[in-house]
């Protein structure tokens, strides 16, 4: 078995352990490349059965339009149940990154929205596509990560996790977040997408797109809700990660295929989350968000 075979086998192992030992599992589907890989692995883990859990997308109404199209098409083609949750309070207040700032926007739509959805459906285990190479606090997290009934992560008091044996015991209300891609790197993900021919949102590939400069990032104007004082210009760009369009920076790139992306990555000198505004709100902000229940 080569490196990708082993990563695949480990992730499948994690999926099966999690499903076998939980009552109401769910897969947090955020539509990006990691979610695409996660879903592909879930299908492999349970074939010929379908993955025995629904997909949950915590929507913010500010995702790229192409993401939403891709999400709906994927769920329909695979015949999987898709739950879309939008925090009703955010809908009522019209929470958006322009008027309310990225921190409040992310907290209310994503963190609070996720907690609402998990509580409403009483999910006791949620799969996520986070990887340890993404960020310093994620590098510290267990594969099976315990959450209190208030969805809090306590990084100072994580459970031991030996070999491939996972502690799944929880009391009512408590839950586990499971990260089958913990030991994958960004490059592994792209190589696997290439090898397996996994569909990903076209925004990952370079194309001429309308962009403006905001806070040092290249922001794509995806719809007419974005306040503009200038006319967007067209540049050949792609995205390394996908989130809410007003908060996700594009990179100038000519990579139009997966092999070209892999080639570009090998020469990369910045990390993928460099383009994510929400990570830079303050130092240690990912850990703080995770402690509050963010994925």
């Amino acid at each position, binding site marked *: *078995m080569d*490196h990708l*075979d*082993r990563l*695949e*086998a*480990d992730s*499948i*192992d994690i999926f*099966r*352990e999690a*499903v*076998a030992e939980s009552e109401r599992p769910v897969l947090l589907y955020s539509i990006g490349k990691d979610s695409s890989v996660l879903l592909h692995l879930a*299908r*492999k*883990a*349970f*074939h*010929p*059965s*379908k993955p025995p859990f629904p997909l949950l997308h915590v929507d913010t109404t500010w995702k790229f339009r192409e993401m939403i199209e891709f999400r709906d098409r994927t769920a329909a083609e695979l015949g999987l149940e898709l739950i879309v949750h939008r925090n009703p309070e955010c809908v009522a207040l019209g929470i958006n990154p322009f008027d309310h700032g990225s921190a409040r926007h992310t907290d209310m739509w994503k963190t609070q929205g996720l907690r609402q959805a998990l509580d409403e459906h009483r999910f006791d285990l949620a799969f996520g596509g986070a990887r*340890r*190479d993404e*960020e*310093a*606090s994620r*590098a*510290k997290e*267990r594969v099976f990560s315990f959450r209190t009934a208030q969805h809090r992560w306590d*990084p*100072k008091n*994580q459970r*031991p*996790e*030996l*070999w491939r*044996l996972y*502690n799944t*015991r929880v009391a009512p209300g408590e839950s586990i977040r499971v990260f089958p891609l*913990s*030991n994958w*790197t960004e490059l592994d993900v792209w190589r696997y997408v290439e090898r397996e021919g996994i569909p990903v949102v076209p925004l990952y590939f370079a194309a001429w797109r309308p962009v403006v400069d905001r806070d040092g990032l290249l922001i794509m104007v995806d719809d007419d809700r974005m306040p503009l004082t200038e006319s967007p210009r067209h540049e050949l760009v792609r995205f390394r990660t996908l989130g809410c369009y007003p908060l996700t920076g594009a990179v100038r790139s000519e990579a139009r295929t997966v092999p070209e992306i892999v080639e570009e990555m090998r020469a*990369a*000198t*910045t*990390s993928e989350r*460099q383009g994510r505004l929400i990570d830079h709100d303050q*130092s*240690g902000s990912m*850990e*703080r968000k995770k402690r509050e229940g963010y994925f």
Partner: protein
Amino acid sequence: MELLRFITCGSVDDGKSTLIGRLLYESKLLYADHLAALEADSRRVGTRGGELDFALLVDGLAAEREQGITIDVAYRFFATEARRFIVADTPGHEQYTRNMVTGASTADAAVILLDARKGVLSQTRRHARIVSLLGIRHVALAVNKLDLLGYSRESFEKVCFEFTEFAADLGFAEITCVPMSATEGVNVVGHSELTPWYDGKTLLQWLETVVVDTEENGPSRFLVQWVNRPDATFRGFSGRVLRGTLRRGDEVRVLPGERTSTVDRIVTMDGDLLEAPTGSSVTVVLTDDVDASRGDVLAFAADPAGVADAFQAHLVWLNENGLLPGRQYLAKIGARTVGFTATKALQLNEIGVDSVHFDTPVPFESYRTNATSARSWCSTG
């Protein structure tokens, strides 16, 4: 490219996190935005007077930065021309031993650091013993902070002798001693003029060449994790080949028990396989409608694993509440959770040899001969 998983361990303040930061930095494996964040953090909360404080690269939790210590294991990924690496940087404080054990359990090799001025401390010994218990056989002893002793060859050799003598009974296949200064980058990546008397491997050279023990082959063992029944026509066992190669047509015994059957199909989403090597995650269909469930092991029938309910075992106790003789606990054995009792008391972070009684028979193999399938883990319950 080959993968090496290794840990850095040793007593507190011996420079583990600094070493990893230095490895990443010197191998030019830091992204520009991470380096910029490190420069800013070093000025803000660093302990090196504004110079780059490499520990901040791995000590990613707020509480760790606040206290200047490592609390939990951090995993970092890097690659050189020779190999790819996953390094687990483990905490030195005794209080966080369980996090060190977590990191060590998946490692192929260990870098044990010690402060040349302090020599072998009790925590160095504890970590070396845990490394040995977990079956890691390749060890580098990084004799760190030699800059504070003027790169004295005599001090280096004294500490090496002290450690190798202590470790003689721990069953390591090799102990490579490297004279080092992580903060100054001496013998981490390249050789240094400051230690002209040392012509052995630098730490990175050792990591690039240390032998990765491949799983010993032998009679196949398949762990059933999940019974796969999409409809009335299909009944398969989804799980993992823990050892050996599982082949279509193999006669297997369902452990624990006497039931036997034959492998009819090895199913994957990419099509059926004729054989599945060690480590593969597949779904097995048997020719007979035998009963097997989660936690059972399908073992090569001509040479099955043993089954027992009483063991003598090394225990590492990781709970604040000590192990009480005779009290019921739960153990996770493969994909099975069983009750057990022990006969001796153990305190937090204590290592002992004890008699353990399970409330049901479990398949077993020696950890020495087969680290993947033979493992147990206990939790209070």
